């Protein structure tokens, strides 16, 4: 099957004239880049242009001419973020050679600049939703075999040694007939600390026993939750009473005590007003450990079907940061967020929050920037290890010696002391798992993870990618390279397209 052509109409994508061609305002050439032509998807040269406080990627295709896409909504953020860099770690083993050059040798090749922080295993391409925003074109014709899954786990461990988190995704992974067995297989590998699944939450909403099983197996759930109201949900996720389903899923996960991450895909003009309420939800619920905002990337079904998309007016990481500040009334500020230095700074930003009484204080408000960067370097999650302990001790000493300069420092220190007593009680020794669990309740995280589509794709970002799809042949495919360039060629999905069992297709009744 040939891939669906992206509905690119010259007019919609605002192919611009050259700089000399009389663009209304002044623009500055920032740097050379290499991206993809949005029409033929071939790698083409381009330039990063600064204009009116924003950064655009302008590319020149020999065949299709010039195209332009917004890559950062805030030039200050963009320029500053480029200073947050850190040398990458190498995987123990590569799967491909450098032949054609990036991004055509993926899997990883020795030219890749980062190992895998978060391998994603797509165990099925069946889905019970047809989300207009989906970054995948699900063909509903593949379920991974146990043998393939075992091989992937072996491959990941062989390449990474030990790994913090792996993610099971799809399609909708909970539709896989062997899903629970896969969870057990992954949990039984001691090299893997955490297993998370990315789900639309429909099974969580309709099957409470499933939620209990997830809690019992210690699986972390990444729940797709873009908004809390139907109009936005329908635009992004399609028909049915999505709101009722999501509410039920949240209630079941909370009741079963499943450690949950909320994942919100943000589309300009659709749900970019829901950032504040998502953060409020994170703050108010103990079972929700973190929140990930994903500025929409228009690949797969989303690239083909999502209507209100203008590559020159998309939402980018600094836009999310600014909106978070506005919509939380400053509870979270722009200065609380920093790019994650281990990935490309344009791909990831985050802030850690310490629970103080009933509030959450972002780490950068009490931790020196340098220490904070050290802490978040090469990882997305906090572990109570030597580095973390060192950073916290530095923070405590710093607050103590500069008493009064850090706002709320007495309260923060009181909170840290209570945390120590909770995690290291005098009366009894805690199991490591129990202590980790207490730690999880005290520190929450807000991530912003920007995926790339054909418009925003840049070779330098993909070289530093640490979010990888793990394939049964052993390859680890940088997420956005796979989504944009490889998935449609994946032979596992080469069979005839299957029939999707879409939830709510027969009736619009709420669950």
């Amino acid at each position, binding site marked *: 099957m040939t891939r669906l052509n992206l509905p690119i109409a010259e007019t919609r994508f605002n192919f611009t004239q050259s700089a000399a061609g009389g663009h209304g305002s002044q623009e500055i050439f920032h740097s050379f880049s290499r991206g993809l032509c949005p029409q033929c998807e071939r790698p083409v040269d381009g330039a990063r242009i600064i204009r009116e406080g924003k950064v655009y990627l302008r590319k020149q295709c020999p065949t299709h001419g010039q195209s332009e896409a917004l890559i950062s909504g805030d030039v200050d953020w963009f320029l500053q973020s480029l200073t947050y860099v850190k040398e990458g770690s190498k995987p123990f083993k590569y799967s491909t050679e450098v032949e054609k050059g990036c991004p055509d040798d993926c899997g990883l090749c020795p030219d890749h600049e980062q190992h895998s922080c978060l391998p994603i295993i797509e165990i099925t391409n069946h889905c019970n939703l047809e989300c207009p925003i989906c970054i995948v074109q699900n063909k509903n014709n593949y379920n991974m075999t146990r043998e393939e899954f075992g091989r992937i786990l072996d491959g990941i461990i062989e390449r990474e040694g030990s790994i913090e988190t792996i993610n099971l995704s799809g399609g909708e992974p909970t539709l896989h007939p062997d899903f629970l067995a896969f969870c057990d297989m992954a949990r039984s590998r001691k090299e893997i600390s955490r297993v998370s699944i990315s789900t639309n939450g429909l099974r969580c909403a309709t099957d409470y026993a499933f939620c209990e099983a997830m809690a019992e197996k210690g699986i972390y759930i990444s729940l797709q939750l873009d908004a809390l109201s139907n109009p936005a949900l329908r635009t992004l996720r399609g028909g049915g009473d999505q709101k009722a389903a999501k509410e039920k899923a949240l209630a079941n996960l909370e009741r079963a005590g499943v450690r949950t991450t909320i994942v919100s895909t943000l589309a300009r003009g659709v749900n970019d007003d829901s950032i504040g309420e998502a953060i409020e939800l994170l703050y108010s619920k103990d079972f929700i450990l973190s929140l990930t905002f994903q500025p929409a990337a228009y690949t797969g079904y989303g690239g083909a079907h999502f209507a209100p998309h203008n590559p020159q007016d998309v939402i980018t990481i600094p836009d999310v940061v600014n909106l978070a500040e506005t919509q939380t009334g400053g509870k979270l500020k722009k200065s609380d967020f920093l790019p994650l230095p281990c990935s490309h700074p344009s791909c990831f930003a985050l802030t850690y929050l310490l629970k103080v009484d009933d509030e959450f204080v972002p780490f950068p408000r009490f931790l020196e920037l340098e220490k904070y960067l050290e802490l978040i370097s090469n990882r997305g999650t906090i572990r*109570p*290890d*030597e580095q973390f*302990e060192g950073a916290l*001790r530095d923070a*405590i*000493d710093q*607050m*103590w*010696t500069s008493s009064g300069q850090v706002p709320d420092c007495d309260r923060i*220190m009181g909170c*840290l*002391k209570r945390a*120590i*007593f909770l995690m*290291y*009680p*005098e*009366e009894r*020794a*805690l199991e*490591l798992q129990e202590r980790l669990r207490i730690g999880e309740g005290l520190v929450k995280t807000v991530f912003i993870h920007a995926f790339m589509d054909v418009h925003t794709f840049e070779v330098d970002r993909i070289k530093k990618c640490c979010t990888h799809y793990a394939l049964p042949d052993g390859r680890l495919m940088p997420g956005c390279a796979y989504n944009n360039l490889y998935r449609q060629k994946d032979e596992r999905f080469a069979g005839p397209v299957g029939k999707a069992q879409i939830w709510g297709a027969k009736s619009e009744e709420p669950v």
Partner: protein
Amino acid sequence: MKLLAGKRVLITGGSRGLGRELCLRFAEHGASIGFSYNRNAGAARKLENELTQLGASFRSYQCSVLDTDGTQKMVKDLEEQLGPLDILVNNAGISQNLPLALLEEEDFDRVMDTNVKGTYLTTRAVVRSMMRRKSGVILNMGSLAGVRMIEAPIHYCASKAAVVGLTEALAKELARHQIRVLCMAPGLLEDGVGRNLPEHRLKDYLHHCALGRVGTFREIAEACAFLVSDLNGYMTGATVIADGGV
């Protein structure tokens, strides 16, 4: 070999951890046991059952080491019930994991009170009859943290170093009454303070420990049984470090 046949022992903080193991091993070595506990009545009942199963004669008391009157009553009752005490083990102690910046006066006092003042108060209550009889052994529970420069909370280290000083001075003072005073200073022990360390610190300890493992309560308790036994009659004032070679 029964090292403590016919001996009457008081062990403070006896219901859990090393204290519990001391009670059990000392009973196995033939001693009658009195033990005190502060809060954990459940653990105390469990230990009582275990001691009963060993066929040991024992008494238990809910009594804080900082309760002077309670301690005196306990010692009086114990000596009436079991007979005069031959051995006192000052085992009750607490630890907290606090950096200086978070360590407030009340935290400092609590640890010093329990670990140092408690040792002094119990000793004072017990030692009078030992002095009359010109015989007895006092074993204080120290810690590696009190004798070596290691990363541990200052009040805990200070209290355990104080126990060493107290041991030496007390040994000098009581030697003319033929009372021996010793200090056992263990390193990290299984299920003890050790399990409540961040993982990397435990790893660090194991790396520096020649035997490459934490100690068990049982082997420390066995060493204590020998130290307080009559076989060891010429050792006093000594702090014996049992740390697997850190």
